[in-house]
């Protein structure tokens, strides 16, 4: 198990390097010119200077190498400095200044380090998208269990229909639809998610709660559809197995048979599916964040794309790639750890 994990970790390094190269080359091939908005009256030599200031004067491989250094060496140093200087957990360590005077990945839009902006945007995304994931799982698992237990019942048919709807109705339709119903006609919920809202007391908590309902529900519908489908399939596979008959024959209560024996075995594939869906939480839901005006990571990527802010786009896309690779690995390892029948070596 340990060797398998180590081997996968080692293998993920070339994978990530390749992905970063693909993203980088894609951005390089793109014809978009960051100097396009500069007025024509600016003389060409000044333009050349501006280009070099943005780090565009060098050949492609040097640019790529520098980005790698900045991302994998300097940004971690900045993080270490943050830990030792300001964080509450490690501030007892002597203050370090590893990153002093080093160039970080700078956004072309705001001229501030990309990672700082990412850290600012992360909480909103984690709150909305993360909570919707949790809500989706909490709804999906009972639905999956019950519709597998009552296979072909009315509940099962209705559950299948609802999951089909969850698969089929895109969030850019459910979002506006809910806004029309609940904000416009009924006026119960706000249509825009206010990220500057601070929860201090019960009243402001209620405001926060109400503004989170719609984005969370829109995203949770999709999660529910997916996970309840897997849960139902896994339960159906297990319910006909011999050990279930044995458990019943021993005289165990039906609740124990289903909720302990079958459920534990059925959770193995579901847990890995849940792990595989995790990167999407950090990646933010580009469409839903756009509909409800949540200024999270997804919205950050979209604005950076429209503004031709290549360092930001590069870094964000690569962070998503790291998360996908990491959670793929976690899913594989979890699968082996939860199910002793699976041997990797």
């Amino acid at each position, binding site marked *: 198990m340990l060797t398998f994990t180590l081997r996968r970790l080692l293998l993920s390094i070339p994978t990530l390097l390749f992905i970063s190269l693909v993203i980088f080359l894609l951005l390089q091939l793109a014809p978009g010119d960051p100097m396009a908005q500069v007025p024509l009256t600016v003389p060409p030599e000044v333009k050349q200077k501006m280009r070099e200031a943005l780090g565009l004067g060098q050949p492609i491989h040097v640019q790529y190498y520098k980005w790698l250094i900045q991302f994998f060496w300097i940004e971690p140093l900045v993080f270490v400095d943050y830990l030792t200087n300001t964080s509450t957990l490690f501030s007892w360590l002597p203050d370090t200044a590893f990153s002093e005077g080093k160039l970080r990945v700078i956004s072309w839009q705001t001229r501030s380090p990309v990672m700082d902006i990412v850290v600012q945007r992360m909480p909103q995304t984690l709150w909305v998208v993360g909570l919707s994931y949790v809500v989706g799982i909490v709804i999906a698992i009972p639905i999956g269990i019950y519709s597998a237990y009552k296979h072909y019942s009315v509940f099962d048919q209705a559950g299948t229909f609802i999951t089909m709807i969850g698969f089929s109705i895109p969030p850019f339709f459910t979002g506006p639809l809910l806004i029309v119903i609940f904000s416009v006609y009924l006026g119960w919920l706000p249509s825009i998610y206010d990220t500057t809202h601070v929860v201090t007391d019960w009243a402001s908590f209620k405001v926060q709660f109400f503004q989170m309902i719609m984005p969370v529900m829109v995203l949770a519908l999709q999660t529910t559809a997916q996970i309840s489908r897997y849960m139902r399939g896994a339960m159906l596979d297990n319910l006909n197995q011999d050990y279930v008959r044995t458990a019943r024959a021993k005289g165990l209560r039906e609740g124990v048979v289903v909720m302990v024996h079958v459920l534990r075995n059925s959770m193995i594939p579901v847990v890995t599916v849940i792990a595989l869906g995790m990167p999407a939480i950090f990646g933010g839901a580009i469409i839903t964040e756009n509909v409800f005006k949540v200024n999270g990571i997804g919205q950050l990527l979209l604005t950076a794309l429209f503004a031709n802010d290549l360092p930001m786009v590069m870094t964000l896309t690569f962070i*998503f790639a790291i998360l996908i690779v990491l959670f793929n690995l976690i899913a594989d390892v979890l699968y082996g750890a939860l199910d002793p029948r699976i041997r990797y070596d």
Partner: protein
Amino acid sequence: MTEQPIPASPIEADIETFGALTDKEPQKPPRSQWRDVWDQFRKHKGAVFGGGFLIFITFAVIFGPYLWDVDPKGLDIRNKNWRPIYTLLWEADAKAGWAHPFGTDQLGRDIMAQMIAGGRVSMSVGWLAMGLALVIGTAIGVISGYFKRMDFWLMRFTDLVLSLPILPLVLLAVTLFRQPLNSRFGPEGGMFILIVAVIGLTSWMQTARIVRGDILALKEREFILAARSIGTTSGKIIRRHLLPNVISPIMVSATLGLATAIITESALSFLGVGFPSDYPTWGKLLADAVQRMQDFPERVLLPGIAISLTVLSVNYLGDGLRDALDPRIRGR
């Protein structure tokens, strides 16, 4: 000499005795495999409705412009902001009528004509992108399943592509490559090619994996050995023996691919990186209507329902096909 038939062997005698296997011809006409598939498929109500709706919507967008020959881009500013015809049910003096059954938008363009034109684009993007993904996925799946030498590298490549963040990359490619393609093929043609290519190139991986798995299992069967022993070439084996046997997983992943392609195209249009602004697609119509959905909710609802119903019917169709094409489920 008496005509006493002498049984040639004890087995034949038994047959005579028990009267079994004496029937000279089958009593029921032979049934083909596709007949069985169709019978199973018919039992799945949702799939039949889904398939029917998909055929209906495809014909509607193909032949709709000939039946409803209003120009979807024709401005008629005097007749702007008509409501759909059903508004007359509860509001007798609403601005609505049979001239524009779905109403008109803020520039007086007929929404029904726009819906038909938009559906044409969305459906053709969906079908073509799905076809492209299937061709790539099947090719990679077959090659890596059949030729052992290619297997490792092709599957590593598939894993790599699977771990790319798809939606950000699609957005990236569409925003970045819009200009050169537009200048070469025109704003509409360029965007069409770009979107079909981008969706097709990012959604072939599941098909490749499924096809590879099936080919790996099929390759070891006796009929392939027999084919090889009479000197069939690899290309012939693949075309004549392997591909017909993997047609069912390919069909199932085709339906899934169609659904994702339609949704991805609409999402791109919704985010404003899709087709140019005067070129209607369902996602574009929806996105344009969101600003004024308080006054004209039907302009959001109509394209939204069109997208959702199409995708829902495609998903149900896939569900039914999966059951119908699986010989273990069929006939139960």
